[in-house]
């Protein structure tokens, strides 16, 4: 991944290097060669040349289009996470990063990941805009309040890499830094099973699902006044106003924090908002739980 960006960088560097040298040389040579030799010297005037003007507009422009297209390709490729990526959840706070593995491991300002596997981060922030930046992997993404931001990478070499917050976020912005520990997959497995886990995210979410009272409405045996959440994740949902949406992370988050925004077809809007009662981390745990409901098809009644 860093390779693609660096190839682009080399290209940019070479083209610009050539142009810079050309212009510096031209200016210097002209300045020396045509220096004023007598005070009353008047050079021959030139009006210009259409041919030259066209050449030096069109040729650089074509070169620039290459820069643009190449840059866009790298950007697009890096915008869509591949399927089957390992998902990790990130919440930015003033001024620290909280990270959670689906298996339950939680970390602060540190992230352990295995090599050879795409890693997808789903990121939220509790307060202002932060930006998740790992220079070594050439990735960066702002984490904007009110929605999820995605980013992905794949590490190839074990080692420790810098993690920075790149969007100015207040007093200790420069202290919102940490390390990415890239490990061989086997080491990673060992690390996962080490201390620090509190049960998987889904199981924490399941507990939360009961504590928050979600389970009083959303039951898994009967489909009464509330939709059954089994198999919801990734499905398309028909809404009351006729639109259909894909039930992804953002949709579920919105359903919890602002249930009135999108109402499921056939249901009434009786779900209360949980805004202010639940942290972004909690929401992520609930999502992990709801997600697990569609993966294992475990639609038991948790009541």
């Amino acid at each position, binding site marked *: 991944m860093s390779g693609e960006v660096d190839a682009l960088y080399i290209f940019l560097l070479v083209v610009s290097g050539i142009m810079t040298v050309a212009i510096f040389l031209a200016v210097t040579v002209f300045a020396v060669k045509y220096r004023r030799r007598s005070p009353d010297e008047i050079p021959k005037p030139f009006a210009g040349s259409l041919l030259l003007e066209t050449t030096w507009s069109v040729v650089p422009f074509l070169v620039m289009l290459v820069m643009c297209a190449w840059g866009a390709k790298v950007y697009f490729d890096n915008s*869509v996470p591949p399927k089957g990526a390992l998902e990790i959840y990130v919440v930015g706070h003033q001024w620290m990063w909280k990270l959670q593995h689906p298996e339950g491991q939680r970390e602060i300002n540190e992230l352990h990941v295995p090599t050879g596997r795409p890693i997808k981060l789903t990121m939220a922030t509790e307060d202002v805009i932060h930006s998740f930046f790992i220079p070594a992997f050439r990735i960066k993404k702002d984490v904007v309040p009110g929605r999820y931001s995605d980013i992905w990478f794949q590490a190839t070499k074990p080692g420790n890499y810098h993690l920075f917050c790149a969007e100015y976020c207040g007093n200790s912005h420069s202290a919102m830094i940490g390390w990415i520990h890239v490990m061989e997959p086997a080491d990673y497995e060992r690390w996962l099973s080490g201390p620090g886990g509190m049960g998987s995210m889904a199981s924490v979410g399941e507990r939360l699902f009961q504590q928050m009272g979600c389970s009083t409405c959303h039951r898994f045996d009967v489909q009464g006044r509330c939709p059954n959440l089994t198999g919801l994740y990734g499905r398309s949902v028909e809404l009351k106003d006729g639109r259909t949406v894909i039930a992804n992370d*953002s949709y579920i988050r919105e359903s919890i924090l602002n249930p009135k925004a999108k109402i499921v077809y056939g249901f009434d809007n009786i779900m209360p908002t949980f805004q202010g009662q639940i942290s972004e981390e909690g929401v992520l745990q609930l999502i992990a739980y709801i997600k697990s409901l569609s993966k294992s098809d475990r639609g038991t009644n948790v009541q």
Partner: protein
Amino acid sequence: MTPHEIIPKKTYFVIWIVLLILTVTTALVAYVDLGVFNIYVALTIAILKSLLVILFFMHVKQSSNLMKVVVAAGFFWFGIMLTLTLTDYLSRYWLPVD
């Protein structure tokens, strides 16, 4: 503007009446359910009204081309702001998710 270009009173009154009629129309049409078209009708009428005001009340119709360009530029730049900002909002959720 030289005196012979002074617009007759009648023109002003006609424009005024038309503006009032359009105002009432837009208010009434707003209660008719045209679905998504309500907003387009409302905006079309608003644009029509503003054209009348600009061309006649503000004398742009008889003004020099330079002045017309200045007026057009103002709206054109507003259009730039609107459309390019919209490119973001319209396409934000196009990306396939997962």
